[in-house]
């Protein structure tokens, strides 16, 4: 049984400036045994006091402004970012990939990118042909896969990255803003594939600004604001409340701290 338990998780992101990073600064301060003015450390509290308990069957949508902590929370859940304090317990095989687009290389052909993605994801060589067939069927890119990725249209790149992103079936699926643009035909196909994937996965956590997607796929919403959970609840009411709040406040404060 898959489960995710977070207790009082916090992520403090240090913001380094040029002077702080320098070895000279570090040495001089050690030598003179004083804290210089420039040595005050800037922190952004990217996540604060996050406690969660997710069980199989949970389809969680993460909503919130830019910078509310959605991606950071996903990184913590995916084991990419170790929190600065708090406790995480995760049971079940978890998807390790949040986003495919940044891993694709524009100079390489479609086939070469698929091979790189296969190795990065740790899919064994025995499943190489199955993966290729799957990607071919879904993307319908055909001979285009022999061309460098930079010759693809945005929609074609999206199709490839989506196919690779959804190539595996983890017990816990984490996704960061996946279905963006794309024509109507692709959207239909993607939703279908996505639906299949979600059915088989035990826990889904999806961060998105596209509220209809959340409404379509999730049964629970977590609303993040300035790194904290503002509210947790049922999909419809929370989305409604969120939309109202978005209209009221357009400039949230920045959670920067100086020590």
């Amino acid at each position, binding site marked *: 049984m898959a489960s995710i338990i977070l207790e009082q998780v916090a992520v403090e*992101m*240090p913001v*380094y400036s*040029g002077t702080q*990073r*320098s*070895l*000279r600064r*570090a040495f001089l301060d050690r030598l003179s045994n004083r804290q210089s003015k420039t040595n005050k450390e800037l922190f952004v509290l990217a996540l604060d006091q996050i406690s969660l308990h997710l069980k199989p069957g949970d389809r969680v949508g993460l909503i919130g402004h830019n910078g509310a902590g959605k991606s950071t929370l996903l*990184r913590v859940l*995916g*084991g*990419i*970012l*170790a929190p600065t304090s708090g406790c995480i317990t995760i049971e079940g095989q978890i998807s*390790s*990939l*949040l*986003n495919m687009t*940044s*891993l694709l*290389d524009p*100079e*390489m052909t479609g086939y*070469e990118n698929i*091979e*790189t993605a296969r*190795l*990065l*994801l*740790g899919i064994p*060589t025995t499943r190489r042909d199955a993966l290729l067939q799957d990607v071919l069927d879904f993307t319908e890119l055909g001979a285009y896969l022999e061309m460098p990725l930079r010759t693809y249209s945005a929609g074609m790149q999206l199709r490839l990255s989506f196919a690779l992103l959804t190539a595996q079936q983890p017990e816990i699926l984490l996704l960061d803003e996946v279905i963006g643009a794309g024509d109507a035909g692709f959207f239909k196909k993607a939703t279908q594939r996505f639906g299949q994937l979600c059915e088989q996965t035990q826990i889904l956590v999806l961060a998105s600004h596209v509220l209809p997607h959340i409404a379509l796929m999730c049964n629970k919403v977590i609303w993040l604001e300035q790194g904290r959970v503002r509210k947790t609840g049922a999909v419809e009411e929370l989305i409604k409340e969120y939309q109202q709040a978005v209209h009221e406040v357009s400039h949230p404060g920045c959670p920067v701290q100086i020590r």
Partner: protein
Amino acid sequence: MNFTLLTNRCPALSEFFQGLWRVQLWLHLGWRDIGIRYKRTILGPLWITLSTVGTFVALGMLYSALLKNDIHQSLPHLAVGLVTWNLLSGIISEAPHLFLQARHIITTLRLPLTVHVARLLSKHFFFFFHNLAAALLTLLILDGRPGWILLCLLLTIPLLFVILFPLALLLGMLGTRFRDLEPIIGIFMQLLFFLTPILWSPADLPLARKYWVTFNPLYHLIEMVRAPMLGQLPELFSLGMALGSMVLLLLLALWGFCRFKNRIIYWF
């Protein structure tokens, strides 16, 4: 305590080895790094070999004239020395940047961080093997009889890998936190090129001034490849220095990795 028990107690330790274990991945990424750089060129990665050969042939001829050496002796020495130097300095100068270069992977995919270190090493070892083949060819043309001692390389080249791996890991972590490290290392490597016996031979030094090579670890590392290629066994002292630095670097790297691996992503 057996090994699994140890890795269970320290997850960072198991990550350290898991990364090394993904051989197919880091070989592929290393090879791709070369491929991307030389895409759409006619000679591809052979450009690197060509430039190395050009350098050691020209420099070999010049320096044998300057130092009045026999080119049959000085050119092989310089060729193998330069090829090995390129491996060492390539890895050391690029290491501070290695995690930064992979930040797009590190921030989206959970992967043992040591994969990125091995990726850098595999790239430079690919170059190295190409260049070493060219150097060997030069040796054959000049003199012609490689001995059984060449088999030594089967041990000493892996030893170089095991020394450079923890070194690159340490420099990578330090370079992510302290951005000055990269330019500093760039300057030092330039200087060390002249301080290390590549263009010259340790035999040229008067006995009282041998400390110029005795305390230069890079000289001993180069000897791991150069001595067998020139038909000699590496000196015992060089071997000792190499093994010593291997143990020291491995311990330092394991400690540093266990202590700081979770912080690396915060330093971006």
